[in-house]
């Protein structure tokens, strides 16, 4: 006869087996979970949307309408001396993982500039956050309309 206690034991063994399985196998079990922009900001910057200060010193160059979300050119520059800047973060709100990239600057860069191509799951703002050496966070965002998503 199977008691309730036995059932728990079996379930426990199963759970352990799952956790020790190689990363690849484990990944295929869990359905991808959408991380909210607020959580992504908290994870990388330690503060949510409310901690950001809008700044017109940061310029984002990105298309207003992107034909394909798989390849959206984004260029960020800032009129801030590079020696005051620690890092630049790029986020795309609607992606499963909104964090796209972090760029660490040194005075050898000469200018705050970064360009890349990113994936966008759907129409959403693209955010650039500049982390200053004094700890303040300056942000700018630009809405990009996507007709075909780029995340699978």
């Amino acid at each position, binding site marked *: 006869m199977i008691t309730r206690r036995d059932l728990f034991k079996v379930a426990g063994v199963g759970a352990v087996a799952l956790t020790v399985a190689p990363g*690849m196998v484990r990944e295929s079990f869990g359905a991808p979970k959408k991380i909210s922009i607020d959580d992504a900001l908290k994870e990388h910057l330690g503060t949510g949307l409310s901690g950001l200060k809008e700044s017109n010193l940061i310029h984002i160059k990105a298309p207003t309408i992107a034909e394909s979300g798989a390849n959206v050119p984004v260029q960020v520059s800032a009129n801030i001396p590079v020696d005051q800047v620690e890092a630049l973060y790029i986020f795309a709100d609607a992606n499963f993982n909104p964090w796209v990239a*972090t760029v660490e600057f040194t005075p050898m860069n000469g200018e705050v*500039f970064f360009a890349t191509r990113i*994936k966008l799951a759907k129409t959403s703002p693209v955010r650039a956050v500049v982390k200053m050496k004094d700890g303040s966070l300056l942000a700018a965002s630009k809405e990009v309309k996507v007709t075909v998503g780029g995340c699978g």
Partner: protein
Amino acid sequence: MARIGRAIVRVPRRISKGQVFKVQMVITHPMETGFRKDKKTGKVIPAHYITKVEFLFNGKKVTTLHTGAGVSKNPYFAVKMKATESGTLTIKYEDNKGGKWSKEVKINVS
């Protein structure tokens, strides 16, 4: 795909001292998010993307990029750099599956 990790780097041919110039690069890489499914088998394609790109000039750190799967396939990156002297720009990059590569470019400052 044996070509994964190949990179093309472009810098201006002539750079004058003190000039801020652009370094552009494209890496051949699938940049899989780990969310996509293989249409034939229905299995999830494991994540495979560039995690880090380091730019070093004459051994000194210029810029470090940390990237996630949100960057497009065959990623393009451009950064700016100030020319102080001639030397070698080394770009080191790695992915989440342990792939490590590096690429060297000569910078001629006149």
